């Protein structure tokens, strides 16, 4: 079996501040951070890492809007157009009475679509296997991962930078993330 090329440089930290330092350090030197793994969301990290704000809320808006239109049309269609029955003498178009269901369907479909979109976007699905490279990131460890892409990647410099910022271990690892 040929040796698998080591394609990731994984630096682990035990505290948030060291991690932040390391992130700043490697970013300052032009490294592109593949990702950071943490047991909880670190709120000021996104900017440091250069992550753009997610567009998922647009999914909510779109799905919710579609659901709203669907709900209204469904109710108009069934109650007014398809079979208008005389219910308590009320007009077939009892629009006010259609509001609650319209709202509920908007929320339901909007919400579920957002969650589904998140799972799709973040490629989360039931049974997906965890990566053995990231031991402890769900407990107390923070991991900064750089991708070793080609020769232009200065692994030495990266290591140096990381070791200067309170890292507990730096390792080159192979695998999928």
């Amino acid at each position, binding site marked *: 079996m040929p040796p698998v090329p080591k394609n990731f440089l994984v630096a682990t930290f035990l505290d948030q501040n060291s991690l932040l330092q390391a992130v700043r350090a490697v970013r300052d030197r032009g490294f592109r951070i593949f990702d950071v793994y943490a047991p909880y969301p670190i709120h000021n990290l996104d900017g440091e890492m250069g992550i753009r704000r997610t567009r998922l809320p647009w999914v909510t808006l779109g799905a919710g809007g579609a659901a709203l239109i669907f709900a209204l049309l469904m109710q108009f269609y069934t109650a007014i157009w398809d079979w208008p*029955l*005389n*219910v*308590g*003498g*009320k*007009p077939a178009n009892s629009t006010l009475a259609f509001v609650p269901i319209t709202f509920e369907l908007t929320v339901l479909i909007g919400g579920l679509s957002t969650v589904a979109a998140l799972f799709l976007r973040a490629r989360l699905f039931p049974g997906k296997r965890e990566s053995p490279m990231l031991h402890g990131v769900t407990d107390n460890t923070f991991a900064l991962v750089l991708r070793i892409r080609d020769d232009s990647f200065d692994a030495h410099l990266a290591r140096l930078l990381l070791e200067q910022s309170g890292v507990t271990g730096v390792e080159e690892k192979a695998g999928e993330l």
Partner: protein
Amino acid sequence: MTPSTRAEGACKNRKEELVQIGQPDPRAYWKSLEQLHGGQKPSAEFAKGLPSAAVTRTDDTRRDFLSLMGFTVAAAGLAACRAPVQQAIPMLVGSDQIVPGVSSWYATTCGGCPSSCSLLVKQRDGRPIKIEGNDRSVLFGGGTCATGQATVLSLYDGERLRGPAWKGQSADWRQIDRHVSESLAAAERSNREIVLLSGTITSPSMLEIVTDWSKRYSNFRHVVYDAISLSAMRAANEKSFGRKLIPHYWFDKARVIVGIEADFLGTWLSPVEFARQYAASRKPENGSSLHVQFEPGLSVTGSNADVRVPVAPSNLGAVAVALLRRIAQKAGMAGFPEGPEPLADSKKLDAVSEELWRHRGASLVVSGVQDESVQVVVNALNAFLGNIGKTVDTARPSLQRSGDDAAMAELVERMNRGEVHTLMLHGVNPGYDYADAGRFLQGLEKVTLSISFSDRRDETSSHAHVICPDHHFLEAWGDAEPVESHFSLAQPLIAPLFNTRAAQESLLMWLGNDTSHYSYLRSFWQKNMFPHQKEAASFDAFWDRSLQDGVVDFPAKSAAPAASFHGDWRAAASGIIDRQKQQPASREDSYELHLYESVAMRDGRSANNPWLLELPDPITKVTWANFAAVSPQLAQRLSLSNGDVIALKTENARAELPVFIQPGQENRTIALAVGYGRKQVGKAGNNVGQNVYPLAQVSNGFRRLSALNIALEKTGRRVDLAGTQTHFSMEGRPIALETTLADLSKESAAGEEHKATPTLWTEQPQGEHSWGMSIDMNACTGCSACVIACQAENNVPVVGKDQVQRVRIMHWIRIDHYYRGSEDNPVSLHQPMMCQHCGHAPCETVCPVLATTTSSEGINQQVYNRCVGTRYCANNCPYKVRRFNWYNYTENPKFDFNMNSPLGRLVLNPDVVVRTRGVMEKCSLCVQRIQLAKNIALQGKRELVDGDIKSACQQSCPTQAIAFGDLKDPNSRVSQLMKSQRYYQVLEELGTRPNVGYLKKVRGSAVI
């Protein structure tokens, strides 16, 4: 007969059994005449009518569904699976009389009580399923009473004997005939009597058979015994008018009606007829008559009176005397015996007599008091007022009661002395209802041969040697003459269900006359009726027409003028006064009893009829029991509350009943309903309530429905009464409205018509018709015939006492009873209440599944198969008229009433679905009748006209209080009534826009 429903397993097998004709299996019933005769099988598809209608069907749907709940992809394959195979079995030989699925109507005569009302009976696929009044009858005019409506269910009573019995063993007719003939021969040889003990017989042909018997056997006697008899009146009338008769009354001709303890609107003599007349006299448009009622307990009649005075039974005679004294003075009769005033407020009597006198010749005094003297005094009153021949018809008397208390008492003594050899019992049950039933049964032991024609083993027939079960009247030929020269024919609607034989036929057979009852009847009519008429040329034509019409009226036999009164009223009055004086001063702890017939149970003969058992009493709304009605004052004094059981003791009898606190009850009197507490009538009626007949006291040979000097004690036990209404005050709400004659005339001047409440919504598109109903609360007496009519028409289940107690009665129409005024003597209001078919129905908006919507013709339609049973509609119904099926009431042993037996289910209307559990139901305005009428109009290629459709409640109403019709037709009766000044809608301020409206009750002018 075919199982038309998709029934499987046991259900199907049972139906297969039903199919087998002529099998000894007791469950093998006829379904039609054709089935019986000639082995023809009526055809197939009796869709809903057959036992287990919709219920099994919906179950099947559910089964289909559930079977698919566990599906995977195989669901597609499963969809191909089939429902159980249904078979259709046509008749072998077609009949031009019976087309499957088409109802026919036959005229007959009611056998529910001796009033003998003329009926039209609906027959469907060979089964009578609905009783209606015959509107060709000049006497009864198309109305019925609750008892009459319920008789159709008695036909399908599972307790009826399947065949004759000889000394407790079932036997065949030939055996019995041989035994009886032998015994009769022996009787003839002996010097002992042959006695026919019957109830009132209104049938002239049967009376002819009785005459034949007296001709054949010199030692034959006919004794007539009525549990509730008018024997004293007959005796008094003999003294007053020279003839033992019950006069025929004309309430419609009376402007002033005074009742002295006679519930003529509820139970007395001929209530359907009287209610009809009464309603006519009470029309506010003609200036209503004045009705004053003196009575101990609140009766249906009393609840309708303008003035009602609670009077103790012992004091009723004195009231009559006091009235007579005043009238006699006005009439200038001298020599009236002096006596004390019976009422504290003697001005009331002054005013009443003033009114009576003012309306001489157009007034009427009636009394049901079983006392000769009182009746003579009443006769004198009518005579002095010139009512005889006007409102009191003695020329064409009523034949509806001919019981003779004295003859009965004598018979019992003779029996005990062993002087009776053969005793035939027809239509009587003295073992239950005779004052001294023990003595009667003792005597019965000494009779050599006792023959009962009873349809079941009851308290008397179980002691008889032979039971020769008579047909139910719907299976039998017959005739009746309720009022002299007014005849009504009876014809069978169904071949006898069981191996029974008409009593007349048995009697003829034992006379050695082996003609059938039918040919005897025909020849009787040919001999006695045919000659009196001129219209028909041949007897066949006359017979056919009479049978079709059901009624034949001849002019009075004797054109004699009104009988003149020659009774000794002075003696009678002084007798009453003396008795009053002799009466020991009433002690604090002694009370009086007042026994009465309840509207539902009457004298107790229909005590196994679950419809009647569950019919709420019109006054108290109590079902499934009788009770001791006490006045609120007495209850307070003795600290009694509803349901406390008290013991009532006379010298030789004792009864324990739960208390019901009855406003308007006379303070020292306790009212009890007879007819309950039967021990051997059937599983529904056994031991329901207490038998209070033994408490009745006999005075001067007449059994009075009252007793003096009753001891009362509390037992400490409690029995919860099952009432369908527990709150009788309107709480000041504008629900059942009333007005006065004076106000009405004022309003007419103002002339303001009823207007619908305004709405923000646009009107919904409407169809060709708009069905509506109008209920005249002034005409409604509360008699409750409509309740049973609706139950019969719409397959409304009986739920039993426990469920009624849990407020789960299923009746689609109820009659609300409200009181106004003081507890001691309140004013009553009866308000029939059913689905109001709101145009803006609150129930519809809340139904999640559209199971209830408004039809294009204004009906609030309830679709049972769509209903999921959230009960939201019932909660939101301001009238609380929706009924939920809390359980399966069909084929459920927990509700072992008519709908739990294949026999009892034969009464179901095939045009109305039997509802399954978990669905809501309610009044549909008899939509099946609307559809039928439309279809008949279609067949006749014509438009519907007003009167084509009559709802079941409307049809049954003797007073025509209910009008149904098309609101879009400005000439329909209901549209006309809507224009009445009295028209209003209940709770219309809620904006419900009901299609059912009410006409306000009118209170008479406040002269008294």
